[in-house]
């Protein structure tokens, strides 16, 4: 097998895979490496919410562009993923929450969203299954979901079509730079070196570890986020539900399962990927879901899992060049990275290809710890 490429991308989640796809389509020879399998971490185990409500306000323009790409998936990726355009309702139950909701909606509208505040009756009309106790709701026509589990296979097929080399179950253990980057990977205890002019780090919660190999130190939190899925229910929900403080997301897939998220924290670390719930948080998430959507009383919880998500000190993404490392790039730690992922990945690929793309606000320099 050939060991030299134009670009080596570390991490086959949504960020790395999207960068790979667009670079390959621009003629680059790409190697995509993952220590596990494609889309097995955050990108494959998240709630799949494509929401504007929960995206950071300043990232709304990116989320909107990302959302468009999701809705037009068959044009650039695949037909094989369940993607649904649904309206998004963000709910408030108390006076305090109402204030928060109005504030959050306004700042998102300032950044390009089109969110309207509805009263309880109007919200009930759109989504009759909601609790009668809501005070008001923020309504966004632009919202929806994609089925995270299916994304990996769809991307894999698209990547293979572009002749991208994918190395799974391969852990990066060393990165050196001479004339080219040399990346040493370990697979079943056999080490192998690969070479490229460019390298892109897109490995989510493992970004910190890999950056260390390039003598760059940043603080990266590893958050274990909880998800709950119910058994199949008759279809009763036609919107994506969130709430004012951001701690609930609720949607129903076409097969009837309801998926509940909201970022309630559990326990998990990068070392062995074993995650577990914090029971009080689990019960809290369950109660919030029940309160919001009384219909859930008619079903059972089928499975609870956690995914690992990276977060920087300022909870904002890192996208762009890695300073002092000519030819090295990084992308990740976005929060609602699934929504914006396709667009941000595409942006970075254009940046790498030399196009006029401004990624200044995402520069990693702001986070680098001084030695």
């Amino acid at each position, binding site marked *: 097998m050939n060991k030299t490429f134009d670009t080596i991308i570390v991490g086959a989640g949504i960020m790395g895979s999207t960068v790979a796809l667009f670079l390959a389509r621009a003629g680059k020879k790409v190697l995509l490496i993952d220590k596990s*399998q494609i889309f097995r971490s955050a990108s494959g185990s998240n709630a799949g919410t494509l929401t504007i409500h929960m995206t950071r*306000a300043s990232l709304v323009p990116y989320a909107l562009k990302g959302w468009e790409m999701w809705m037009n998936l068959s044009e650039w990726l695949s037909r094989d993923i369940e993607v649904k355009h649904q309206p998004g309702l963000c709910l408030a139950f*108390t006076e305090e929450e109402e204030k928060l909701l109005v504030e959050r909606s306004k700042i998102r509208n300032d950044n390009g969203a089109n969110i309207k505040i509805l009263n309880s009756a109007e919200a009930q009309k759109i989504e009759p299954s909601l609790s009668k106790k809501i005070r008001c709701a923020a309504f966004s026509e632009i919202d929806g979901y994609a089925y995270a*589990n299916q994304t990996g296979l769809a991307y894999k097929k698209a990547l293979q079509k572009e002749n991208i080399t994918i190395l799974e179950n391969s852990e990066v253990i060393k990165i050196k730079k001479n004339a080219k980057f040399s990346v040493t990977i370990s697979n079943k205890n056999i080490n192998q070196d690969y070479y490229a002019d460019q390298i892109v780090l897109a490995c989510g919660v493992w970004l910190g570890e890999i950056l260390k190999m390039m003598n760059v130190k940043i603080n990266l939190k590893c958050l274990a986020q909880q998800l709950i899925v*119910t058994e199949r229910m008759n279809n009763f929900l036609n919107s994506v539900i969130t709430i004012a403080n951001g701690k609930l997301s609720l949607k129903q897939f076409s097969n009837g399962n309801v998926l509940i998220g909201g970022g309630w924290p559990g326990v998990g670390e990068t070392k062995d990927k074993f995650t577990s719930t*914090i029971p009080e948080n689990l*019960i809290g998430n369950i109660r919030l879901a029940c309160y919001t959507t009384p219909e859930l009383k008619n079903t059972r919880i089928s499975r609870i899992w956690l995914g690992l998500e990276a977060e920087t000190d300022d909870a904002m993404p890192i996208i762009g060049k890695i300073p002092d490392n000519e030819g090295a790039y990084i992308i990740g730690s976005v929060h609602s990275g699934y929504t914006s992922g396709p667009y941000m990945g595409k942006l970075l690929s254009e940046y790498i290809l030399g196009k006029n793309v401004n990624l200044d606000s995402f520069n990693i320099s702001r986070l680098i710890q001084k030695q």
Partner: protein
Amino acid sequence: MNNKVYDVAIIGSGPSGIAAALELSKYNINILLIDNNERVGGQIYRASPPEFKSDESVEEMQIQKDLEEKIKKSNIVYKPNHTVWQISENFRIDGFTESEAFVWRANKIIVATGTTERIVPFSGWTNPGVIGLAATTIILKSQQTMPGKKIIIAGCGPLLLVVAYYTLKLGGKIEAIIDTNSKWTWLKNFIFLFSNIPLFIKGFKWILKILLCRIPIYSNCTVTSAENNNDLLNVEIKNLNNIENSKSIKLQCDTLCVGHGLIPSTDFSRLMNAHHKFDKYLGGWIPEVNKYFETSVPNFYQIGDASGVLGAMPAYEKGKIAAISIIHKMNLLSDYELDQQYKILSKKLKRLKIFGEAISKISFPNDLLYKQILPETIVCRCEDITRKDIENSANNGAHDLNQLKTWTRCGMGPCQGRTCHYATSLVLAKCTNKKIEDLGYWTGRAPVRPIPFYVAAGDFTYEEITKIESTPI
């Protein structure tokens, strides 16, 4: 939720769970015994519902009654009808009944949850009228009735005998017994059955009764199809060496009772991220345990058939061994006493294992049974995933169980893969040319049994919902 912390919590009140509980109860410690059944005894001493006024002169019913009495008289806190759905850090145990959720805490946990049934799929195995062998024993022994009027018993292992015997005892009609093992396989392992004379004699009496009733026995054969025909089932049987052949024997019944051995229940050990190993004859994946049956998770023990299928007799001793280890850890037994007691118990266990190990050789499904899973045969019942679906996924690159699950939904349904774990592994192993043990096992997750939302939520006010930091704007 009160703040009581039990010294030991035992999940499962079958032979091993009870043995552990009773051994521990000799000391003045706080013991919690939880079981999702109504009464103690597990599957083997499955008692009838209390509403039944049953014939207690039956031997197994008497054993069950004795055990129940002993538990009642002891200081053990017993929670029947409670299903454990989660175990978390610091051994917080979450359980539920039909209407309410409970939380307990313990310093040490013993899991004694026994087994679930293994069935190698065949065409029509999901049709109503096809039920498990272990399921049938519950109907016969505990519910004291027949599943239908005319049954066919199929599969492998000692449950064939158990079901046949109890059916005849109840006056039921057996159309045929279809055994995937050859008579030679039974004979080969016969000699080891002498290691437990009383059990051997019992089994022998049962075989005699079945033979005297002249029930047709088809050895080295398997059921390859069961199709509904009004209220009946049309069943096709083929010789193991001729599965691909179209020639078959056709029989009819109203219930087909089929099973290919038992699988240790590893829901909890996987949930706790204990290390596991694959042992074919002990039932498949089992947690790695030390000599006291402590898993790789400190103070988390797994005993009985849940740590390897050997039957009720060895299960008792395993329970006692785990108990003395715990008592020693609590400084109520000296090192010397622990050693002495362990020597005696382990010697007994070693002897009792011989019978169990011989039985296990006839309880593992023959490799050839793979051929009865046709491309359109459903493998994952919950999600209607066929063998063809699994093969397609493997061709796309799914080469381990967890990857397969993500891409096909195999194992994602309400039973969370309990029913189809073996069959899925078998199919995936064949189409990736790997060994079953190299495919891994499905990550254990809560809830270990589905829990109604309203029960998990309980009574609460909006203000009570644990408030955590809002998402930043």
